[in-house]
Protein backbone atom coordinates (compact mmCIF):
# COMPACT_ATOMS: atom_id res chain seq x y z
CA UNK A 1 0.00 0.00 0.00
CA UNK A 2 1.62 3.20 -1.20
CA UNK A 3 0.10 6.68 -1.40
CA UNK A 4 1.04 10.22 -2.33
CA UNK A 5 0.69 11.98 1.03
CA UNK A 6 -0.75 15.49 1.11
CA UNK A 7 -0.30 16.68 4.72
CA UNK A 8 -2.05 20.06 4.35
CA UNK A 9 -1.01 23.30 6.02
CA UNK A 10 -2.52 22.55 9.43
CA UNK A 11 -0.23 19.52 9.79
CA UNK A 12 2.58 21.93 10.59
CA UNK A 13 0.60 24.11 12.98
CA UNK A 14 -2.76 23.58 14.68
CA UNK A 15 -3.02 19.92 13.71
CA UNK A 16 0.48 18.59 14.28
CA UNK A 17 -1.09 15.84 16.38
CA UNK A 18 -3.25 14.76 13.40
CA UNK A 19 -0.13 14.51 11.23
CA UNK A 20 1.89 12.74 13.93
CA UNK A 21 -0.78 10.17 14.68
CA UNK A 22 -1.62 9.53 11.03
CA UNK A 23 1.98 8.95 10.02
CA UNK A 24 2.68 6.79 13.09
CA UNK A 25 -0.39 4.63 12.41
CA UNK A 26 0.53 4.35 8.72
CA UNK A 27 4.07 3.20 9.58
CA UNK A 28 2.75 0.58 11.99
CA UNK A 29 0.26 -0.78 9.45
CA UNK A 30 2.73 -0.90 6.56
CA UNK A 31 1.11 1.97 4.66
CA UNK A 32 3.84 3.78 2.74
CA UNK A 33 3.33 7.55 2.54
CA UNK A 34 5.35 9.50 -0.02
CA UNK A 35 4.96 13.20 0.76
CA UNK A 36 4.15 15.17 -2.39
CA UNK A 37 7.21 17.18 -3.29
CA UNK A 38 6.45 20.92 -3.36
CA UNK A 39 2.79 20.61 -2.29
CA UNK A 40 0.96 23.87 -1.67
CA UNK A 41 -2.19 25.06 0.10
CA UNK A 42 -5.57 23.74 -1.15
CA UNK A 43 -7.02 27.26 -0.77
CA UNK A 44 -9.40 26.24 2.02
CA UNK A 45 -12.55 28.29 2.56
CA UNK A 46 -10.80 31.58 1.78
CA UNK A 47 -10.26 30.58 -1.86
CA UNK A 48 -13.78 29.35 -2.60
CA UNK A 49 -15.30 32.37 -0.87
CA UNK A 50 -13.17 34.61 -3.07
CA UNK A 51 -12.95 33.13 -6.55
CA UNK A 52 -14.28 29.92 -8.08
CA UNK A 53 -11.38 29.50 -10.52
CA UNK A 54 -8.77 30.03 -7.78
CA UNK A 55 -10.56 27.43 -5.66
CA UNK A 56 -10.46 24.87 -8.47
CA UNK A 57 -6.87 25.66 -9.52
CA UNK A 58 -4.99 25.39 -6.21
CA UNK A 59 -6.03 21.76 -5.51
CA UNK A 60 -5.63 20.87 -9.20
CA UNK A 61 -1.96 21.87 -9.16
CA UNK A 62 -1.41 19.52 -6.21
CA UNK A 63 -3.31 16.71 -7.92
CA UNK A 64 -1.07 17.19 -10.95
CA UNK A 65 1.91 16.58 -8.64
CA UNK A 66 0.19 13.38 -7.51
CA UNK A 67 -0.44 12.38 -11.11
CA UNK A 68 3.29 12.39 -11.72
CA UNK A 69 3.74 9.84 -8.94
CA UNK A 70 0.95 7.65 -10.30
CA UNK A 71 -0.32 7.15 -6.76
CA UNK A 72 -3.66 7.82 -5.09
CA UNK A 73 -3.54 10.93 -2.88
CA UNK A 74 -4.02 10.32 0.84
CA UNK A 75 -5.23 13.25 2.92
CA UNK A 76 -5.86 13.50 6.65
CA UNK A 77 -7.54 16.91 6.77
CA UNK A 78 -11.26 16.90 5.98
CA UNK A 79 -11.06 20.40 4.49
CA UNK A 80 -8.24 19.53 2.08
CA UNK A 81 -10.17 16.36 1.21
CA UNK A 82 -13.27 18.40 0.44
CA UNK A 83 -11.45 21.04 -1.63
CA UNK A 84 -9.57 18.42 -3.67
CA UNK A 85 -12.73 16.45 -4.34
CA UNK A 86 -14.56 19.66 -5.26
CA UNK A 87 -11.79 20.59 -7.71
CA UNK A 88 -11.98 17.13 -9.30
CA UNK A 89 -15.73 17.61 -9.63
CA UNK A 90 -15.44 21.10 -11.15
CA UNK A 91 -12.72 20.14 -13.65
CA UNK A 92 -14.26 16.83 -14.74
CA UNK A 93 -17.81 18.12 -15.11
CA UNK A 94 -17.08 21.29 -17.09
CA UNK A 95 -14.81 21.46 -20.17
CA UNK A 96 -14.80 25.24 -19.79
CA UNK A 97 -13.57 25.05 -16.19
CA UNK A 98 -10.98 22.45 -17.22
CA UNK A 99 -9.65 24.81 -19.86
CA UNK A 100 -9.50 27.77 -17.47
CA UNK A 101 -7.78 25.70 -14.78
CA UNK A 102 -5.23 24.47 -17.35
CA UNK A 103 -4.43 28.09 -18.22
CA UNK A 104 -4.04 29.06 -14.57
CA UNK A 105 -2.00 26.02 -13.53
CA UNK A 106 0.05 25.78 -16.71
CA UNK A 107 -0.87 22.20 -17.63
CA UNK A 108 -4.01 20.28 -18.35
CA UNK A 109 -5.67 18.32 -15.57
CA UNK A 110 -8.69 16.10 -16.21
CA UNK A 111 -9.91 15.78 -12.62
CA UNK A 112 -9.38 12.04 -12.43
CA UNK A 113 -6.79 11.58 -9.66
CA UNK A 114 -8.30 9.62 -6.73
CA UNK A 115 -8.39 11.47 -3.41
CA UNK A 116 -8.68 9.29 -0.33
CA UNK A 117 -9.21 10.20 3.28
CA UNK A 118 -7.16 8.15 5.72
CA UNK A 119 -10.37 6.74 7.26
CA UNK A 120 -11.36 5.38 3.83
CA UNK A 121 -7.91 3.88 3.36
CA UNK A 122 -8.07 2.22 6.79
CA UNK A 123 -11.48 0.68 6.14
CA UNK A 124 -11.26 -0.10 2.44
CA UNK A 125 -7.59 -0.78 1.71
CA UNK A 126 -6.17 -2.04 4.99
CA UNK A 127 -9.50 -3.66 5.83
CA UNK A 128 -11.10 -4.74 9.07
CA UNK A 129 -9.48 -8.22 9.33
CA UNK A 130 -5.93 -6.85 9.10
CA UNK A 131 -6.76 -3.91 11.36
CA UNK A 132 -8.17 -6.17 14.06
CA UNK A 133 -5.19 -8.50 13.82
CA UNK A 134 -2.79 -5.57 14.31
CA UNK A 135 -4.40 -4.34 17.53
CA UNK A 136 -2.26 -4.79 20.62
CA UNK A 137 -4.62 -3.09 23.05
CA UNK A 138 -8.32 -2.39 23.50
CA UNK A 139 -10.38 0.68 24.30
CA UNK A 140 -11.98 -1.56 26.95
CA UNK A 141 -15.51 -0.27 26.50
CA UNK A 142 -14.58 3.42 26.38
CA UNK A 143 -17.66 5.33 25.28
CA UNK A 144 -16.83 7.33 22.17
CA UNK A 145 -18.99 9.85 20.30
CA UNK A 146 -17.93 9.54 16.67
CA UNK A 147 -18.07 13.02 15.17
CA UNK A 148 -17.78 13.54 11.40
CA UNK A 149 -18.62 17.20 10.95
CA UNK A 150 -19.36 18.64 7.51
CA UNK A 151 -16.55 18.30 5.07
CA UNK A 152 -16.12 14.54 4.89
CA UNK A 153 -19.76 13.84 4.11
CA UNK A 154 -21.02 16.96 2.29
CA UNK A 155 -21.77 17.64 -0.45
CA UNK A 156 -22.23 13.92 -0.80
CA UNK A 157 -22.29 13.83 -4.60
CA UNK A 158 -18.79 15.36 -4.47
CA UNK A 159 -17.12 13.55 -1.54
CA UNK A 160 -18.96 10.22 -1.73
CA UNK A 161 -17.78 9.52 1.82
CA UNK A 162 -19.93 6.97 3.66
CA UNK A 163 -23.47 8.32 4.25
CA UNK A 164 -24.45 12.00 4.32
CA UNK A 165 -26.76 11.88 7.36
CA UNK A 166 -25.70 8.82 9.31
CA UNK A 167 -22.09 7.86 8.55
CA UNK A 168 -20.66 4.89 10.45
CA UNK A 169 -17.01 4.68 9.37
CA UNK A 170 -15.59 6.12 12.59
CA UNK A 171 -18.09 4.12 14.66
CA UNK A 172 -16.90 0.92 13.00
CA UNK A 173 -13.29 1.74 13.82
CA UNK A 174 -14.22 2.53 17.44
CA UNK A 175 -16.11 -0.75 17.82
CA UNK A 176 -13.25 -2.69 16.22
CA UNK A 177 -10.92 -1.23 18.85
CA UNK A 178 -13.18 -2.48 21.63
CA UNK A 179 -14.82 0.86 22.31
CA UNK A 180 -18.53 1.57 22.49
CA UNK A 181 -19.68 4.09 19.89
CA UNK A 182 -22.55 5.98 21.46
CA UNK A 183 -25.77 6.64 19.58
CA UNK A 184 -26.06 10.42 19.29
CA UNK A 185 -27.65 12.93 16.93
CA UNK A 186 -24.79 15.38 16.23
CA UNK A 187 -22.57 13.23 14.00
CA UNK A 188 -22.75 15.56 11.01
CA UNK A 189 -23.53 18.86 12.72
CA UNK A 190 -21.28 21.86 12.06
CA UNK A 191 -18.81 23.00 14.75
CA UNK A 192 -18.71 26.53 13.34
CA UNK A 193 -15.01 26.24 12.44
CA UNK A 194 -15.30 28.56 9.44
CA UNK A 195 -15.94 31.51 11.76
CA UNK A 196 -13.05 30.71 14.10
CA UNK A 197 -11.49 34.18 14.14
CA UNK A 198 -14.30 36.35 12.86
CA UNK A 199 -17.26 35.20 14.98
CA UNK A 200 -15.77 33.21 17.83
CA UNK A 201 -19.06 33.52 19.74
CA UNK A 202 -20.78 31.42 17.07
CA UNK A 203 -18.07 28.75 17.19
CA UNK A 204 -18.49 28.51 20.95
CA UNK A 205 -22.29 28.33 20.65
CA UNK A 206 -22.30 25.57 18.02
CA UNK A 207 -19.44 23.54 19.51
CA UNK A 208 -20.96 23.84 22.97
CA UNK A 209 -24.19 22.20 21.86
CA UNK A 210 -22.23 19.34 20.25
CA UNK A 211 -20.19 18.74 23.40
CA UNK A 212 -23.27 18.92 25.63
CA UNK A 213 -25.05 16.37 23.46
CA UNK A 214 -22.03 14.04 23.47
CA UNK A 215 -21.87 14.24 27.23
CA UNK A 216 -25.62 13.73 27.61
CA UNK A 217 -25.32 10.68 25.36
CA UNK A 218 -22.85 9.17 27.81
CA UNK A 219 -19.64 9.72 25.85
CA UNK A 220 -16.26 9.72 27.62
CA UNK A 221 -14.63 11.41 24.63
CA UNK A 222 -15.29 12.61 21.08
CA UNK A 223 -13.40 11.10 18.13
CA UNK A 224 -12.82 13.41 15.17
CA UNK A 225 -11.27 13.22 11.70
CA UNK A 226 -11.06 16.94 10.89
CA UNK A 227 -8.56 19.49 12.25
CA UNK A 228 -11.14 22.30 12.30
CA UNK A 229 -13.58 20.21 14.34
CA UNK A 230 -10.75 19.26 16.69
CA UNK A 231 -9.70 22.88 17.19
CA UNK A 232 -13.26 24.14 17.73
CA UNK A 233 -14.25 21.46 20.22
CA UNK A 234 -10.92 21.27 22.08
CA UNK A 235 -9.49 24.80 22.07
CA UNK A 236 -12.85 26.52 22.62
CA UNK A 237 -14.07 24.18 25.35
CA UNK A 238 -12.67 26.39 28.08
CA UNK A 239 -14.97 29.22 26.96
CA UNK A 240 -18.13 27.11 27.02
CA UNK A 241 -20.80 27.23 29.64
CA UNK A 242 -22.03 24.14 31.42
CA UNK A 243 -19.99 21.03 31.84
CA UNK A 244 -17.90 22.78 34.49
CA UNK A 245 -17.14 20.44 37.33
CA UNK A 246 -17.75 17.47 35.09
CA UNK A 247 -14.32 18.00 33.61
CA UNK A 248 -13.56 18.68 30.00
CA UNK A 249 -14.28 16.10 27.35
CA UNK A 250 -11.20 14.82 25.48
CA UNK A 251 -11.35 15.53 21.74
CA UNK A 252 -9.12 12.97 20.03
CA UNK A 253 -8.33 12.17 16.42
CA UNK A 254 -9.47 8.71 15.36
CA UNK A 255 -5.84 8.04 14.41
CA UNK A 256 -4.79 8.83 17.99
CA UNK A 257 -7.23 6.22 19.31
CA UNK A 258 -6.07 3.72 16.72
CA UNK A 259 -2.42 4.47 17.46
CA UNK A 260 -2.92 3.76 21.17
CA UNK A 261 -4.59 0.44 20.33
CA UNK A 262 -1.72 -0.44 17.99
CA UNK A 263 0.58 -0.01 20.99
CA UNK A 264 2.16 3.28 19.93
CA UNK A 265 3.37 5.62 22.71
CA UNK A 266 1.02 8.59 23.46
CA UNK A 267 3.74 11.18 22.81
CA UNK A 268 4.36 9.78 19.31
CA UNK A 269 0.65 10.33 18.62
CA UNK A 270 0.73 13.96 19.77
CA UNK A 271 -1.66 13.24 22.65
CA UNK A 272 0.35 15.66 24.80
CA UNK A 273 -0.79 18.47 22.49
CA UNK A 274 -4.48 18.28 23.39
CA UNK A 275 -5.96 21.10 25.46
CA UNK A 276 -8.53 18.95 27.28
CA UNK A 277 -6.63 16.19 29.05
CA UNK A 278 -6.87 12.77 27.33
CA UNK A 279 -6.37 10.96 30.67
CA UNK A 280 -9.77 9.24 30.49
CA UNK A 281 -8.76 7.72 27.16
CA UNK A 282 -5.27 6.72 28.30
CA UNK A 283 -6.68 5.07 31.43
CA UNK A 284 -9.22 3.07 29.44
CA UNK A 285 -6.57 1.75 27.08
CA UNK A 286 -4.24 0.68 29.87
CA UNK A 287 -6.95 -0.53 32.25
CA UNK A 288 -6.73 -4.27 31.60
CA UNK A 289 -5.33 -6.93 29.37
CA UNK A 290 -2.50 -4.71 28.27
Amino acid at each position, binding site marked *: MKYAYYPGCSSHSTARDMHESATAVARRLGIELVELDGWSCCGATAAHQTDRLLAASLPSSNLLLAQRTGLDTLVTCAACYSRMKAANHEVSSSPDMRKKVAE*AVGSDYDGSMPVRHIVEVLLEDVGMPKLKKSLARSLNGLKVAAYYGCLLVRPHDVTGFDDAENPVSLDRLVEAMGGESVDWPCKVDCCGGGLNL*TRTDEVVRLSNSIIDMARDSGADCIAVACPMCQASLDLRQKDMKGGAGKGRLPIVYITQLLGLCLGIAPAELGLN*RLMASPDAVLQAVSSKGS
Partner: protein
Amino acid sequence: MTIVISKKRRTSGLRPQVEEMSGVKLDTCYQCRKCSAGCPVAVSAGSAPSEIIRRLHLGAGDELLESGLVWMCLSCETCYGRCPMQINFPAVIDALRSLSVAKGIKAPGGNMPLFNRMFLENVKIFGRSYDLSMIMGYKLGSGKLMDDAGKFPAMLGKGKMALLPPSGADKMSVRRIFDHTVGKKVKSK
Protein backbone atom coordinates in the same frame (compact mmCIF):
# COMPACT_ATOMS: atom_id res chain seq x y z
CA MET B 1 -39.14 39.21 8.18
CA THR B 2 -40.98 41.58 5.83
CA ILE B 3 -39.55 42.00 2.37
CA VAL B 4 -40.53 45.24 0.68
CA ILE B 5 -40.51 45.14 -3.09
CA SER B 6 -40.91 48.30 -5.04
CA LYS B 7 -43.58 48.13 -7.72
CA LYS B 8 -41.36 50.23 -9.89
CA ARG B 9 -38.63 47.63 -10.01
CA ARG B 10 -38.00 46.68 -13.62
CA THR B 11 -34.62 44.97 -13.44
CA SER B 12 -33.96 41.35 -12.55
CA GLY B 13 -31.50 42.44 -9.88
CA LEU B 14 -28.53 40.30 -8.94
CA ARG B 15 -30.08 37.02 -10.01
CA PRO B 16 -28.65 36.63 -13.55
CA GLN B 17 -25.16 37.52 -12.34
CA VAL B 18 -25.37 35.15 -9.37
CA GLU B 19 -26.63 32.30 -11.57
CA GLU B 20 -23.84 32.93 -14.06
CA MET B 21 -21.09 33.10 -11.42
CA SER B 22 -22.25 30.10 -9.42
CA GLY B 23 -23.52 27.96 -12.26
CA VAL B 24 -26.65 27.39 -10.16
CA LYS B 25 -30.18 27.77 -11.55
CA LEU B 26 -32.61 29.04 -8.96
CA ASP B 27 -35.90 28.46 -10.77
CA THR B 28 -36.50 25.00 -9.29
CA CYS B 29 -36.68 26.28 -5.71
CA TYR B 30 -40.26 25.90 -4.44
CA GLN B 31 -39.57 27.29 -0.95
CA CYS B 32 -39.91 24.07 1.03
CA ARG B 33 -37.43 25.65 3.49
CA LYS B 34 -35.64 22.44 4.31
CA CYS B 35 -32.40 24.42 3.82
CA SER B 36 -33.42 27.02 6.37
CA ALA B 37 -34.54 24.41 8.90
CA GLY B 38 -31.09 22.81 8.87
CA CYS B 39 -28.99 25.98 8.67
CA PRO B 40 -26.87 26.22 11.87
CA VAL B 41 -26.45 30.00 11.66
CA ALA B 42 -29.79 31.22 10.23
CA VAL B 43 -30.96 32.08 13.75
CA SER B 44 -27.89 34.24 14.48
CA ALA B 45 -27.57 35.68 10.99
CA GLY B 46 -31.16 36.95 10.88
CA SER B 47 -31.59 35.60 7.36
CA ALA B 48 -32.08 32.09 6.04
CA PRO B 49 -31.10 30.32 2.78
CA SER B 50 -34.66 30.02 1.39
CA GLU B 51 -35.21 33.71 2.09
CA ILE B 52 -32.09 34.70 0.13
CA ILE B 53 -33.25 32.58 -2.81
CA ARG B 54 -36.76 34.06 -2.68
CA ARG B 55 -35.38 37.57 -2.63
CA LEU B 56 -33.27 36.73 -5.69
CA HIS B 57 -36.44 35.43 -7.39
CA LEU B 58 -38.13 38.73 -6.60
CA GLY B 59 -35.34 40.79 -8.14
CA ALA B 60 -33.29 41.83 -5.13
CA GLY B 61 -30.35 44.11 -5.84
CA ASP B 62 -27.31 45.18 -3.85
CA GLU B 63 -29.32 45.45 -0.62
CA LEU B 64 -29.26 41.63 -0.52
CA LEU B 65 -25.47 41.74 -0.01
CA GLU B 66 -26.02 43.26 3.41
CA SER B 67 -27.82 40.14 4.66
CA GLY B 68 -26.14 38.57 7.66
CA LEU B 69 -26.00 35.14 6.05
CA VAL B 70 -23.74 36.31 3.22
CA TRP B 71 -20.73 36.32 5.55
CA MET B 72 -22.00 34.11 8.37
CA CYS B 73 -22.64 31.09 6.16
CA LEU B 74 -20.24 28.35 7.32
CA SER B 75 -20.19 26.51 3.97
CA CYS B 76 -21.26 23.47 5.99
CA GLU B 77 -23.27 22.36 2.95
CA THR B 78 -26.21 21.09 5.04
CA CYS B 79 -28.66 23.10 2.90
CA TYR B 80 -27.26 21.68 -0.33
CA GLY B 81 -27.15 18.17 1.10
CA ARG B 82 -30.85 18.28 2.02
CA CYS B 83 -32.29 20.26 -0.90
CA PRO B 84 -34.83 18.12 -2.78
CA MET B 85 -33.95 20.01 -5.97
CA GLN B 86 -30.16 19.80 -5.44
CA ILE B 87 -29.75 23.57 -5.47
CA ASN B 88 -26.13 24.34 -4.54
CA PHE B 89 -26.86 27.21 -2.16
CA PRO B 90 -23.27 27.48 -0.80
CA ALA B 91 -22.16 28.27 -4.37
CA VAL B 92 -24.82 31.01 -4.47
CA ILE B 93 -23.43 32.45 -1.22
CA ASP B 94 -19.88 32.32 -2.63
CA ALA B 95 -21.07 34.33 -5.64
CA LEU B 96 -22.77 36.87 -3.35
CA ARG B 97 -19.50 37.17 -1.39
CA SER B 98 -17.48 37.84 -4.52
CA LEU B 99 -20.01 40.49 -5.56
CA SER B 100 -19.99 42.02 -2.10
CA VAL B 101 -16.18 42.37 -2.13
CA ALA B 102 -16.17 43.70 -5.70
CA LYS B 103 -18.79 46.31 -4.80
CA GLY B 104 -17.02 47.24 -1.57
CA ILE B 105 -20.05 46.53 0.61
CA LYS B 106 -19.32 46.41 4.32
CA ALA B 107 -19.59 42.88 5.68
CA PRO B 108 -22.04 42.61 8.58
CA GLY B 109 -20.99 40.66 11.66
CA GLY B 110 -17.27 39.91 11.73
CA ASN B 111 -14.76 40.80 9.08
CA MET B 112 -14.62 37.71 6.88
CA PRO B 113 -13.35 39.55 3.78
CA LEU B 114 -10.32 40.69 5.81
CA PHE B 115 -9.73 37.16 7.07
CA ASN B 116 -9.91 35.75 3.54
CA ARG B 117 -7.56 38.43 2.23
CA MET B 118 -5.00 37.77 4.98
CA PHE B 119 -5.23 34.02 4.46
CA LEU B 120 -4.74 34.26 0.71
CA GLU B 121 -1.97 36.86 0.94
CA ASN B 122 0.04 34.43 3.06
CA VAL B 123 -0.66 31.54 0.71
CA LYS B 124 0.45 33.71 -2.19
CA ILE B 125 3.72 34.57 -0.45
CA PHE B 126 4.62 31.26 1.19
CA GLY B 127 2.70 28.79 -0.95
CA ARG B 128 1.08 27.49 2.24
CA SER B 129 -0.92 28.97 5.08
CA TYR B 130 1.20 30.71 7.71
CA ASP B 131 -1.20 30.89 10.65
CA LEU B 132 0.79 33.24 12.86
CA SER B 133 1.21 35.87 10.15
CA MET B 134 -2.39 35.44 8.98
CA ILE B 135 -3.79 35.82 12.50
CA MET B 136 -1.63 38.86 13.25
CA GLY B 137 -2.67 40.45 9.96
CA TYR B 138 -6.32 39.85 10.78
CA LYS B 139 -6.01 41.17 14.33
CA LEU B 140 -4.16 44.31 13.26
CA GLY B 141 -6.62 44.92 10.44
CA SER B 142 -9.73 44.35 12.54
CA GLY B 143 -8.39 46.20 15.58
CA LYS B 144 -9.30 43.20 17.76
CA LEU B 145 -5.75 42.63 18.88
CA MET B 146 -6.47 41.19 22.31
CA ASP B 147 -9.38 38.89 21.41
CA ASP B 148 -8.31 35.34 22.08
CA ALA B 149 -4.83 36.47 23.18
CA GLY B 150 -5.10 34.03 26.10
CA LYS B 151 -5.11 31.08 23.69
CA PHE B 152 -1.77 31.99 22.21
CA PRO B 153 0.63 30.84 25.00
CA ALA B 154 -1.22 27.52 25.33
CA MET B 155 -1.04 26.88 21.59
CA LEU B 156 2.65 27.76 21.49
CA GLY B 157 3.29 25.52 24.50
CA LYS B 158 1.48 22.61 22.87
CA GLY B 159 3.37 23.11 19.62
CA LYS B 160 0.18 24.01 17.79
CA MET B 161 1.35 27.34 16.44
CA ALA B 162 4.45 27.45 14.25
CA LEU B 163 6.62 30.54 14.74
CA LEU B 164 8.58 30.16 11.51
CA PRO B 165 6.93 30.48 8.11
CA PRO B 166 6.23 27.26 6.20
CA SER B 167 8.76 26.12 3.63
CA GLY B 168 8.82 23.53 0.90
CA ALA B 169 5.96 24.66 -1.33
CA ASP B 170 6.46 25.27 -5.02
CA LYS B 171 5.92 29.01 -4.66
CA MET B 172 6.31 29.76 -8.35
CA SER B 173 3.36 27.55 -9.24
CA VAL B 174 1.21 29.15 -6.56
CA ARG B 175 2.16 32.64 -7.69
CA ARG B 176 1.27 31.72 -11.26
CA ILE B 177 -2.18 30.51 -10.19
CA PHE B 178 -2.86 33.74 -8.30
CA ASP B 179 -1.69 35.84 -11.25
CA HIS B 180 -3.96 33.92 -13.63
CA THR B 181 -7.04 33.94 -11.43
CA VAL B 182 -7.69 36.70 -8.91
CA GLY B 183 -4.79 38.73 -10.33
CA LYS B 184 -4.74 42.06 -8.64
CA LYS B 185 -7.69 41.28 -6.38
CA VAL B 186 -5.32 39.88 -3.73
CA LYS B 187 -2.49 42.31 -3.31
CA SER B 188 0.87 41.08 -2.15
CA LYS B 189 2.40 43.07 0.67
